[in-house]
């Protein structure tokens, strides 16, 4: 039997030159010592040039990336995979490619690097689109955060007024990372020359709809309190407004009407389904003030009762939302006991000191990531005369 010799060497030489990928061998400094036809065709190397350096056919960015990342990586690992570069092709258009490379004998100064290049135009444009999509998503997230913060700020007084004889303080911490506007609010405004109204409330839910309702509740309180001296009537106005609004949302709130007395101030307090304010006496004693009335926006007629509390030098009245007491860690609530202990120890602080301590404690209890908004408002009696 006679076997005709297979023309193998010829096939191999052709496969190197005609391989459907670029194949080159180069030195560490990028001098191409061998390149297949495919690669030469891409970059227009026709054999007449003296020598072509690999880095010359890369964009500047890729050149730096190669020097600072790929080169050292090759040296350490011996290989690199899926490195994305853009070659300048013969017609000047960029040719996005993926590169695998292997260094032979990295310890030798004259070590050679084998490089395989795959054109990856479609894949790269797809990746580019993904990248843009991500950038757009990040931008939208950032815009939503700015929008939420701006909206939130518009629901709170930009600064607290100066009220003779009283020290005022407030703290607000939005839920989560502040990407969504919450429904908690606090407010203080002047009724007569020496009378003021404090309001702290919580519209259920979050987001733009809750924010709109928060603004509605806040301004209804403002408007109604100018009309009537009866705090339950103020709440009744809010109740009616919320019922007429098409959303099913409800609201809890507490208001305090502050008037001066010879010994300090009197505060008439009325609560609608909201956590009761705490009177923190100068001595450190902490007591609840008032009685819980019905929440707003749920029933035809909401009923609440008024209570009076007297503030003398060093006494503080602390209003807050359920973001404080219902702050949760696992199955554990922040709760009233913790709040009272905290207030006892904070009794000597300024109004803003107390507000900050309470809000910070509620946030810290939830490892810095509150699940609900936290609002605290404190009014403290300054020395009289």
């Amino acid at each position, binding site marked *: 039997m006679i076997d005709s010799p297979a023309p193998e060497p010829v096939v191999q030489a052709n496969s190197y030159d005609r391989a459907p990928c670029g194949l080159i061998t180069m030195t*560490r*400094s990028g001098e191409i010592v061998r390149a297949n036809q495919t690669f030469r065709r891409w970059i227009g190397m026709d054999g007449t040039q003296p020598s072509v350096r690999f*880095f010359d056919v890369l*964009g*500047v*960015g*890729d*050149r*730096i*990336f190669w*020097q*600072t*990342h790929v*080169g*050292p*990586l090759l*040296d*350490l*690992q011996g290989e*690199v*995979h*899926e*490195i*994305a*570069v853009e070659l300048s092709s013969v017609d000047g258009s960029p040719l996005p490619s993926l590169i695998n490379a292997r260094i032979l004998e990295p310890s030798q*100064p004259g070590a050679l690097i084998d490089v395989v290049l795959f054109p990856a135009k479609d894949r*790269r444009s797809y*990746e*580019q689109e993904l*990248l843009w999509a991500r950038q757009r998503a990040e931008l939208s997230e950032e815009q939503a955060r700015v929008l939420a913060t701006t909206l939130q700020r518009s629901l709170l007084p930009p600064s607290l007024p100066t009220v003779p004889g009283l020290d005022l303080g407030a703290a607000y911490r939005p839920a989560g990372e502040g990407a969504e506007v919450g429904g908690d609010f606090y407010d203080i405004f002047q009724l007569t020359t020496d009378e003021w109204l404090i309001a702290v409330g919580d519209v259920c839910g979050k987001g733009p709809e809750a924010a709109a309702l928060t603004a509605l509740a806040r301004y209804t309180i403002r408007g109604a309190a100018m009309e009537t001296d009866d705090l339950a009537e103020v709440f009744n106005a809010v109740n009616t407004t919320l019922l007429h609004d098409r959303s099913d949302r409800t609201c809890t709130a507490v208001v305090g009407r502050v008037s001066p007395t010879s010994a300090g101030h009197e505060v008439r307090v009325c609560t609608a389904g909201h956590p009761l304010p705490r009177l923190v006496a100068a001595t450190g004693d902490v007591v609840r003030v008032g009685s819980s009335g019905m929440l707003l926006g749920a029933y035809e007629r909401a009923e609440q009762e008024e209570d009076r509390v007297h503030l003398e030098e060093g006494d503080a009245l602390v209003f807050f939302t359920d973001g404080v007491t219902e702050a949760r860690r696992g199955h554990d609530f922040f709760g009233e006991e913790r709040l009272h202990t905290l207030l006892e120890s904070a009794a000597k602080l300024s109004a803003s000191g107390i507000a900050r301590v309470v809000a910070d404690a509620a946030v810290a209890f939830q490892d810095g990531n509150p699940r609900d908004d936290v609002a605290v408002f404190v009014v403290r009696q300054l020395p009289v005369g």
Partner: protein
Amino acid sequence: MLFAHGYGCDQNMWRHVVPAFESEYRVVLFDHVGAGGSDLTAYHRSKYGSLDGYAEDILEICDALDLDNVVFVGHSVAAMMGVLAARRDPARFDKLVLVGPSPRYIDDGDYRGGFSAEQIEDLLRSLESNFLGWSAQMAPLIMGNPDRPELGEELTNSFCQTDPDIAAHFAGVTFLSDNRADLADVDTPVLVLQCSADVIAPDEVGAFVHASLPNSTFHKLDAVGHCPNLSAPEETIAAIRSFL
């Protein structure tokens, strides 16, 4: 001897060079915050928004380890960090070795840094397209276990792999820096090691550094590229040794 790595990778860059000095010197290696095995949560954009933040860290390391008569060896952008540190606290440093230094990468008037501002943009794009491998799955492995670097090593291409946001920020800080004016204030003896055919810090930049420093020695290496510490460790070691 305190070795500082440059932009791109980590202290591994010195692995061929360091053994030559270990018997004679106390050798200190570290990763810049944001690179290698550093605590990424310590990366604050404001602090690392200029090379001064890194220089501050170098002085802090000297302080914490009680280092005196320091021979500082800085590669690439870390060379300028060393210059800034020596300018701030000259008493700490005995000598500086700057490997492939550049006080400004971008051309400016008569100054030739080698790059245009557009080309630096191009670099940021290259980084972006090459950090696709830094997927959400991979990041926690590398970032969450700084005390277990072996986890990172198992991942391909992980050496030189940095959080993409940090890498882009560091690239911006590095390639937009301009520390030409700081050179004149450093009286410490300096060795400028210039590589051949270095696309990142070309010959004329090395010459500029040498001319601007009051007390420097210039040495041109045969080593080609930007990383003689990897490609020609013997030549690099010999040059440093003869300077010391």
